[in-house]
């Protein structure tokens, strides 16, 4: 077998591994249902395209679609950056083909290239193909041209590839030259922000696949392809792997930390362990960023829309506090990536105890971060009068969303959210109260005496719902195993 044949065989083996790993996590049927769900979703959107086009111009739809796919590619690559570390923590003893260079005479570059190709094929088949297939299925009803749909498939794949190749190449820079990575990211970020705010040029023109979609100019096809190949080649050629990282030494702090968490009674010891894990695994930063980052982004975005573009949106502090609950779900996901919990299997600890510990840990974070965020934002927006109601909304929506996520996904949040049945339940649980809170917050200024008590009443219901879900955690997860 020649080198290309061997490489393709390796890609096929990695693909089988990926499919079995995911199917093993959430079940084969649920796993296969995910692309079906994307297909149905895009079919519905395509069928409603006439109505959608009335509210949103076609060009804006292209911008949203390509920006999403580019970000998706970035996220896939970003996960790969931390992938091995997280996989080791979460799956413990599960051995992946990616680790074979440590044992067999195979160059890591060869394995990495196969892994990269596998990731591209997997995500295209798993998400992009069903997305475009849904649009294709609507052709008899919508009358879209086949050539347009195929062209969309091409540009969509290019946007995804640009994201993933940029992410992988940045990963290589990060591993080799951490300070350079920070400087590069900071400079590019500052330039993009400045150009966006200063309207130097249309920032969307930076994505050649989007320009290809807009203009059908062959030049953008060549540019996109060259960028994908160039960035991928850079990532593979500059790849540096450090087997066996250096170890840091730590003084014992378990007993002392446990004393600090004694207020949590039965969960104190598990919380103390999670706190030590958070500090030592360098996950504290990402956890805070995952929570505060989107909130800051929203605050800046609305400041820009209201302050710079002068478009009045009835946003107030209550709106942000409703979002807090939604974003707190990401912290819960991060807390579940801290460490492989399988060692608890041999101790008198139940999975539900650990799930409840994560909920309590998150509550501490949410309490501190959301309170600080809302106070600062209230001061900045001169809306401190809304602070008590905003805090009530923030705490209650967080309690409900997090207890619901914990109840539905246990200790495998990121995996279970790929299960369409769980995802549908999650959406049914989160979206209605979130929409109601947003609508109520928009109307609050019109009639405070009426909408204030209505919002407070909804918060009460959310707290009750959160409490019931929290109590249900024992029933749902009490007999589950910690083992993967």
């Amino acid at each position, binding site marked *: 077998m020649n080198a290309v044949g061997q490489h393709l065989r390796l890609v096929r083996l990695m693909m089988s591994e990926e499919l079995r790993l995911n199917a093993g996590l959430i079940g084969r049927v649920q796993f296969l249902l995910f692309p079906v769900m994307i297909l149905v979703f895009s079919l519905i959107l395509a069928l409603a395209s006439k109505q959608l086009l009335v509210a949103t111009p076609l060009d804006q739809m292209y911008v949203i679609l390509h920006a999403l796919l580019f970000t998706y590619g970035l996220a896939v690559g970003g996960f790969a950056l931390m992938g091995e570390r997280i996989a080791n923590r979460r799956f413990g003893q599960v051995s992946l083909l990616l680790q074979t260079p440590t044992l067999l005479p195979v160059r890591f570059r060869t394995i990495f290239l196969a892994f990269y190709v596998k990731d591209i094929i997997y995500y295209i088949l798993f998400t992009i193909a069903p997305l475009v297939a849904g649009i294709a299925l609507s052709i008899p009803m919508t009358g879209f041209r086949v050539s347009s749909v195929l062209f969309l498939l091409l540009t969509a794949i290019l946007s995804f590839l640009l994201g993933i190749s940029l992410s992988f190449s940045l990963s290589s820079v990060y591993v080799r030259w951490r300070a350079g990575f920070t400087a590069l990211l900071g400079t590019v970020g500052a330039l993009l922000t400045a150009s966006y705010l200063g309207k130097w040029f249309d920032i969307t023109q930076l994505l050649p696949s989007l320009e290809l979609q807009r203009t059908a100019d062959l030049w953008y096809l060549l540019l996109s392809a060259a960028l994908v190949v160039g960035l991928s080649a850079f990532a593979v050629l500059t790849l540096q792997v450090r087997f066996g990282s250096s170890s840091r030494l730590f003084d014992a702090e*378990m*007993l002392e930390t446990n004393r600090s968490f004694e207020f949590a009674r039965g969960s104190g010891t598990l919380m*103390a*362990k999670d706190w030590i*894990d958070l500090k030592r695994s360098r996950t504290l930063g990402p956890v805070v960023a995952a929570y505060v980052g989107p909130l800051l982004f929203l605050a800046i975005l609305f400041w820009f829309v209201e302050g710079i573009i002068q478009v009045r949106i009835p946003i107030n502090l209550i709106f942000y506090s409703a979002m807090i609950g939604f974003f707190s779900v990401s912290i819960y996901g991060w807390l579940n990536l801290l460490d492989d919990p399988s*060692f608890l299997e041999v*101790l008198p600890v139940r999975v539900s105890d650990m799930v409840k510990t994560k909920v309590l840990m998150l509550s501490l974070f949410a309490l501190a971060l959301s309170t600080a965020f809302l106070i600062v934002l209230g001061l900045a927006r001169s809306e401190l009068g809304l602070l008590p109601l905003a805090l009530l909304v923030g705490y209650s929506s967080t309690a409900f969303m997090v207890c619901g996520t914990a109840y539905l996904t246990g200790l495998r949040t990121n995996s279970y959210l790929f299960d369409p049945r769980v995802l549908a339940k999650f959406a049914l649980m989160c979206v209605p109260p979130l929409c109601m809170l947003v609508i109520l917050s928009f109307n609050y200024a019109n009639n405070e005496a009426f909408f204030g008590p209505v919002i407070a009443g909804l918060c009460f219901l959310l707290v009750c719902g959160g409490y019931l879900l929290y109590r249900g955690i024992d029933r749902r997860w009490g007999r589950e195993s910690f083992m993967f």
Partner: protein
Amino acid sequence: MSETIIETDSLVRRFGDVIAVNGVSLSIGKGELFGLLGANGAGKSTLLKILSGQLEPTSGRCTVLGVDPAKDPLKVKSLIGILPEVESPPSFLTGREYLHFIGLVRKINDIETRANWWIHFLDMDGVERVPCKDLSRGTRQKLMFAAALIHEPPLVFLDEPFSGLDPRYQKLLREHLSGYLERGGTVFMCTHILEIAEKMCSQVGIISQGRLVAIGRPEDIIRDGEGLDGAFMRLTEREDAKT
């Protein structure tokens, strides 16, 4: 017969079409070291997991220290000690902190004294500040051994306890187990190192394809002119031929 610590009756565990444990009945008394011998995939670890409350049986019944592990796994786990097959202590705690964690979960009052004893006993002073993820496999195994026995439980389950350990620590831990047995402890050990089983076990069971094909004192199972390895080959090959 001494007090019965473990009793099983027709235990079965299926994984889909595979029968991992097939109608196992046995009884283990206080102070015994029971060695469960079998080839890879014979069902040793599955049986250990059922008895220690980590896995529910498909059918049959069992009691461990008078408790049904299928009904109250938490109670069983609080009474016993378990050394799992795969050494996987928490990644970011140091060895000493892991023992502290065990002490806190198991509500051991003098945990610092006990942790000190085990760290010195297993020569882990040099690595006690290293997070578990950076420890060698052998050191992790020693740590898991300490974690299984630090609360001096009346019964301990050991799954391949000597794997990854050098001969010196194998000997040290064998001696420790002898002392533990003399103090009234009971050991249920899965192993495929037959020499160790022959030397240490008061009773052995040989499991093949989920079935317990022999159980008794080593000298009762071994025929003239063969060692335990010979008896093992004879009994497991006979079972293989049946299927």
